[in-house]
């Protein structure tokens, strides 16, 4: 349905109305293509990426631009989350793309729907609007807002500015949407538990699972903490890297991670009311995580102090 309604701009240069759809389409291209057209970048006000910046910002240094790493109970790419998003594509009768939960295809779909809604009226418009609301709440904004916030923090040009634009554009789209059923987006209704009941190494490993910790924690984030501590990052996986750097300096590292969670929480708390259901979920998770990390940091300090006290001298 949306593909059939897609505007053929080259054939219809007089289109007016909202251009948010085209902005989403442009952002999809930047998310997906390592070297987007300079014309597009210029229009978006983005600098051309340095060689390799796409990979270091979006693939290797951070979490891949897809729903599943954010929403999967184990932080996996693909799996049941991707399958669920694929089901959504099928349900609306649109060919399932090769990466159904990828940011770029989802943004393009949102753009096509946005255009189509602008062109339709009556029952068809209402039906398309319902599809758009489901797409945004359940499969796009639910994870892409905190994902973008974490990407922006990395400060890798032009993806920091790209992240801000993405965040702003999605928030602007949400303004138009009715709240999700029950006020809670689909992925959060049966979300796995937060980290409140976890301890020790298990807690540290789950820090890299965003849907549980609330924290989108990329290798680049960890590398920066490691650099502050003067330790390298375990190349085998982010969970192992977290465990390693905490072992290197438990108190400092745990405090630093808690700071990170608090900063992210503050940032997401600033989301406007239109993004309320997303804001609530992620800020609550981040608050829990921060509390746990600070408790752990205190415990680490007391162990350290206790060790000194036990010194007979």
């Amino acid at each position, binding site marked *: 349905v949306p593909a059939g309604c897609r505007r053929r701009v*080259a054939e219809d240069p007089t289109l007016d109305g909202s*251009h948010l759809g*085209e902005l989403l389409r442009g952002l999809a291209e930047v998310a997906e293509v390592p070297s987007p057209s300079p014309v597009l970048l210029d229009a*978006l006000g983005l600098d051309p990426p340095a060689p390799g910046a796409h990979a270091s910002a979006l693939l290797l240094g951070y979490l891949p631009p897809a729903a599943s790493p954010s929403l999967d109970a184990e932080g996996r790419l693909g799996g049941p989350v991707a399958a669920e998003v694929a089901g959504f594509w099928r349900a609306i009768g649109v060919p*399932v793309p090769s*990466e159904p939960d990828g940011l770029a295809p989802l943004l393009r779909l949102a753009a096509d729907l946005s255009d189509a809604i602008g062109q339709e009226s009556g029952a068809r418009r209402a039906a398309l609007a319902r599809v758009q609301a489901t797409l945004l709440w359940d499969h796009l904004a639910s994870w892409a807002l905190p994902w973008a916030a974490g990407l922006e*923090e990395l400060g890798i040009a032009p993806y920091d500015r790209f992240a801000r634009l993405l965040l702003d554009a999605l928030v602007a789209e949400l303004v138009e949407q009715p709240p999700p059923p029950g006020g809670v987006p689909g992925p959060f209704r049966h979300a796995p538990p937060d980290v409140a009941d976890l301890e020790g190494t298990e807690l540290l490993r789950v820090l890299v699972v965003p849907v549980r910790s609330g924290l989108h924690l990329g290798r680049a984030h960890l590398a920066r903490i490691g650099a502050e501590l003067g330790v390298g990052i375990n190349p085998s996986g982010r969970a192992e890297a977290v465990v390693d750097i905490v072992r290197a300096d438990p108190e400092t590292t745990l405090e630093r991670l808690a700071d990170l969670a608090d900063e992210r929480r503050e940032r997401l708390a600033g989301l406007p009311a239109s993004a309320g259901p997303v804001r609530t979920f992620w800020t609550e998770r981040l608050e829990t995580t921060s509390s746990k990390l600070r408790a752990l940091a205190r415990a680490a300090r007391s162990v350290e102090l206790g060790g000194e006290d036990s010194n007979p001298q």
Partner: protein
Amino acid sequence: MSTDRSATAPTTTASPSNLDDLGRRVLAARQEVEARGETFYSGPSSAGLAAFPPKERWDNWVELDSKAWPKRVERRYTLVPTTCFNCESACGLLAYVDPETLEVAKFEGNPEHPGSRGKNCAKGPATINQVRDPDRILYPLRRVGPRGSGRWERVSWEDAASDIAARIRRAIVEDRKDEVICHIGRPGEDGFTERVLASWGVDGHNSHTNVCSSNGRAGWHYWTGIDRPSADFANAKVIVLISSHLETGHYFNPHAQRITEARAKGAKLVVMDTRLSNTATHADHWLSPWPGSEAAINLAIANHLIQTKRYNVDFVRRWWNWEEYLEACHPERARTFESFQEVLAELYAGYTFDFAAAESGVDASVIAEVADLVASAGTRLATHTWRSACAGNLGGWQVSRTLLLLNALTGSIATEGGTFPNAWNKFVPRPRHVPPHPGVWNELSWPVEYPLAMNELSFLLPHFLLDGRGHLEVYFTRVYNPVWTNPDGFAWIEALRREDLVGCYVALTPTWNETAFFADYVLPVGHASERHDLASYEQYDGQWIAFRQPVARVAAERSGRRVTDSRETNPGEVWEENEWWIELSWRIDPDGSLGIRQYYESEERPGEKLSVDEYYRWIFEHSVPGLPEAAAKEGLDPLGYMRRFGAFEVARGLGARYEEPVPPEELDDVAVTPLGRVYTKAPKPPNPNIVPTGDPEPDPEGRRPVGVMVDGQVRRGFPTPSGKLEFYSSTLAAWGWPEAAVPTYLASHVHPDALGEDEMVLISTFRLPTQIHTRSANAKWLDEISHTNPVWIHPDDAQRLGIAGGDLVRVETEIGYFVAKAWVTEGIRPGVVACSHHMGRWKPEAQPSGVGAMMRTVRLESDGSHRAIRTVAEVGPYDSADPDTSRIWWTDVGVHQNLTFAVHPDPVSGMHCWHQAVRVRKAEPTDRHGEVSVDFERSRLAYRRWLAMARPAGSVSPDGTRRPRWLMRPLKPSHEAFRLPEGSWAGASRVPAPGG
């Protein structure tokens, strides 16, 4: 990460109006770029392995040289489209040509090709291996010494052409027109070679089709008048494949990508394949039937639809020739549709799930489940079968006929997600000249025994020659290798060695093959990037054309060089076929007195030879609707457009042609038969698309069939005698096969009842996904992946026979045996063994050249009736211009099993029925892998036994002709030539009663 709190405070920074402005800027930029015809959003295709260079940059494409890594060295290419020449699909390729040296660096997919859409299988990119093959034939060669002695001398094209042309001219002038035959392997351009032969006035076209797809075609042709399926896989709800079509076959790359799309949308895939092929592993329902029982399963599904009344009643009423059936077979019944429904239910009542289960070995509950799935498909049922079970079995044409019955019952014919007759999804542009069909009939290709044969009985040619039925002055093979590809290769060797049977044998081939070793001339023709062809194949509900072209020539022309002969830019003296045929035809008739030269003379430069540019320019300017306009939009002429982009989509979404009302201007002095066939005196409107279909005969007053009356309206209908879907084939009934006139189940020659107690069935028809017959053996990447063909055997059979994996086994056929390695696997059902036909290449020890990576060196033994090949040397590393040949690590190149297969012509379709009844046992201690032994007398006896199963035209023809004239035939001789020779017709009195 940022610690700047001011940056975290307001999460959103842009107002809606700012965002809208940004979107407006992006839109404006997009409009500007797209208005120039350039790509703005390249999307996922520009990332990773699916990257396609934007077409606006094809003239000057820059890539980093991977061999220079870690240095960043730029290499410039001009990108020239062509089409693959390995399998028949004609997928788009993009050649990366160095503009300075004109060398091709690599081949990738052409994103502008509507069929393949930029995707290729392994064989496409491997074209570069074929171009650079160090063993390829670069110059014309002439035999020195006896045929097959392996001694050759280099000869000029001119000398070869003069000799061959003189022989052909003599045959034509001396009225020995049946002594010129051209045996075609892979089609290059639809109809090109046929038109060459027609221009010579000879009925000399001999296709390979009767060892390939004739049975699959026949089942379709008798139903629809068109001879192959074209499923709209992408939009199907249920897909039924009787084949390993997702991984191999026609046209698996374009089809597989659309099947994958359908599955992503929730379509269900049913695969009927005795082997656990890669295709079967993707199925929602995999059925592994006993070979030959597939039609029984189809009929059980059909019966389920009929008995539960879950078929499309209105479609059947409107489009089946049920009235003709009732009239011919049940004259006692009322001529009403209700009456037909009753008969239909009675006719198929015996095909229960239990019956199908007993025949096939597939559980009845599984068949029932599939039947329900088919019933749920509505008009979105896509089915496909081509070779596989059709090609394997006696009566295999009923496999495709019964599969199409499912479409005919569900009304899923030419519907969205249904199955189309291929001719509606194919566009063959009319060239400037279409010579008239010949006035002679070649009995060597179209023998009187097979009046209903779908294609020439080409695989029987050596037996006919050995029988003394004729002699050949000139015999061509064109990219074909009958000694290796056909059954009974020793018969071919026998005939080709004898100059009294074959005066001059010319092998047109890009690479050495087992048949070329016995040639008088070996003439090197081009690979995918070295020749012109115009192709169109049915791959979705649309029509496209694609242009194969010599890419170095095009690159040279882009840089301003004028090229008039493809040899100027091809490797060595490799020549494209079109220029060769033009040259040869000109030499046959240099003064035009034979009426041949007129077809090869330039219109632009009278008195000079036609150039390929002129030939194609005319076609693209006059016969491809929409192309001139599309070209003009690009600022190109039509030929320039095709040279630039390589493909053009003529139409899309054609839908059900049979439903089209016939326009009033085509209805003049109309006559309507009692069964509703409509004939008109109005001339046929010109049609630039000359795709072949059935051609029903005019009425006695000379009116042409134009449509059929359905519910009071004249609709276009099908190109069948009735104009409808022929559930009942009056042709089959009238020409001696009344018992098979409706879709039915014919027991195969490998039916369990026909097997000896210790016999098993050998399936030999399956391909390997990365090879394509003999064509691809000179592609080193493919050879490294696939170079052998073990015999699949079930663990139960292996245990019974005391065979372990890797053991050598003897597989004994009715005429001999071959020695191969066993592969013990549960991927084959008990009682059946399987061996791909793709392997076992060889060269005689006296032959100096071959295909080094794939041909073992053998000794050909011939002693009385005994024939054999004995291994002299396996393959191994060798020095050549390509350092990779010194790295060949394999020695095992499989076995040439086809040598041990007797010919099995189906008595109706003429198709060779490939499945074999065999005995399998452990090899003798002295047996060597790859060896073959045959008793030639037994092969001759088998030939005679199968020949005797035919019902010759002389005894079954209802009208004294050799063949129903409406059936398709590549060359269709004159009416006079269709008549049986005086005294050879038994008369119409013996026509069997219809029904059965």
